[in-house]
């Protein structure tokens, strides 16, 4: 990531163009969404539960295929995209994570080095170094031989960020990353994200319902409620929700519902 210090904000990392998605041909969960995320962006996707923000994230990651519109990653159509090492992903499942899985912290991060379709993969010295470097970045190096299930929620989350970082990606997607961690862990987690975004120029795409917290952290807020209802700065977002137009009522509903 040291080499990516020259952040080019005009470069598109993701272009979502007129995307609509529905599960099994039922009612659209996403409708006509158009959204561009640029290099160096730190963007929060927000919206009420069931509004489709996680669905949008999955569409961006090719886990779900939209029935209309297109997604381009690094200028390439999603269907032809193969540079998966440029993408890091931190899953939502920390909350219901399988604590009994017999993997050490080192092994979990090493999984991130599993490069796509290449067969007969051996663990090289370069792999080991990449894993230790990634753990260093999230201050978890000393935990490398611990069992993943024995760590606290906040520590596990750092390990998953290390796994997302292990291939030196250009963008990291995080799905409700603070759902299962306490306040203190949350603070140091957001500090880590700031560091990755500002010092390393990493593009961050964060799905969360914790809007109040997000407005203090991110550069842009994209509101998803089936359609894209806003794409603005946190300041604009707060100003809008102060005044009595559409945003206001929604924000109140959102910030008072903190169930996952």
């Amino acid at each position, binding site marked *: 990531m040291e080499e990516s210090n020259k952040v080019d904000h005009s470069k598109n990392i993701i272009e979502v163009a007129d995307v609509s998605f529905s599960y099994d041909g039922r009612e659209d969960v996403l409708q006509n969404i158009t959204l561009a995320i640029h290099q160096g962006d730190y963007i929060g996707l927000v919206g009420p539960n069931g509004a489709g923000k996680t669905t949008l994230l999955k569409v961006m990651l090719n886990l779900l295929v939209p029935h209309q519109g297109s997604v381009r990653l690094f200028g390439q159509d999603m269907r032809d995209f193969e540079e*998966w090492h440029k993408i890091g992903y931190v899953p939502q499942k920390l909350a219901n994570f399988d604590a009994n899985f017999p993997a050490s912290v080192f092994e979990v991060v090493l*999984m991130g080095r599993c490069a796509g379709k290449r067969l007969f993969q051996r663990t090289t010295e370069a792999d080991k170094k990449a894993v230790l470097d990634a753990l260093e970045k999230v201050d978890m190096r000393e935990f490398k031989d611990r069992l993943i299930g024995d760590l606290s929620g906040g520590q596990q989350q750092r390990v998953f960020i290390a796994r997302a970082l292990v291939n030196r990606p250009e963008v990291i997607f995080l799905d409700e990353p603070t759902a299962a961690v306490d306040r203190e862990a949350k603070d140091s987690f957001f500090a880590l994200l700031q560091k990755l975004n500002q010092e390393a120029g990493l593009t961050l795409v964060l799905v969360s319902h914790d809007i109040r917290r997000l407005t203090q952290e991110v550069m842009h807020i994209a509101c998803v409620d089936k359609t894209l209802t806003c794409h603005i700065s946190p300041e604009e977002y707060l100003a809008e929700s102060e005044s009595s137009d559409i945003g206001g009522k929604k924000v109140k509903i959102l910030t008072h519902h903190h169930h996952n």
Partner: protein
Amino acid sequence: MFENIFQYGFIVRGLEAGVIVAIIAPLIGIFLVLRRYSLIADTLAHVSLAGIAIGLLSGINPVLTAIGTAVAASLGIEKLRSSKRLFGESALAIFLSGSLAFAVVILGLADGFNASLLNYLFGSIVTVSAADVRMIFILALVVILILGIFYKQLVYVTFDEEAAKISGVPTRLVNSVLMVLAALTVALAIPIVGVLLISALIVIPVVTALQFKKSFARTIIYAEAVSLFSVIAGILASFYFDLAAGGAIVLVMLAVFAAAFVIRRR
């Protein structure tokens, strides 16, 4: 009483076959257990029985027909599972009981309810031939080779299928490979422990090793140790005390598991 048993060829062959199966079973078992697929081993074993019935009826080597039906069924199960049309394990129940029904009908036609059927149900180490050992050995090499090819992808998919997919891992292929390997493992273990006891060989050493988990790699090593010890001890006990080898192996495994469980809960 403790004469030199290694002067008997059939004992050496039984031990050879047993050791090969003991090495393979936990390698597949760890992925099945961690993915909550433990029941698949049992299902594939019953499917193999249908294959054996076909073999007995047609005169083809029953282990070969068992491999054929088990591999075909494993792909069918994976397809049903990934289509999510059926609820969870109901696909397994359908394959398990369906193939058992099929086996019973075919065996009735073949008039196959005899001693050789019992050998396939409960295993018969005494009747393992040199040709059987060779076939088990080759199959085991195939399983280990494919495992080596897909090992990292299998670990990643087992831990976090979604993240693996985003890393570009062909998860559907990897899932199918695991199922086929499970089918091959089940089929090659039939002569040793028989259809009805195979899942014990695949599941128990892994579950025992998980009591002492430190890492993925070490869990595999512990499971291998439990498996090898139990199979060798079970076979030797069966020769010295004239016990059914398959049952003796599984009972030793259970004793080791119980000991491990008690030690961990202290």
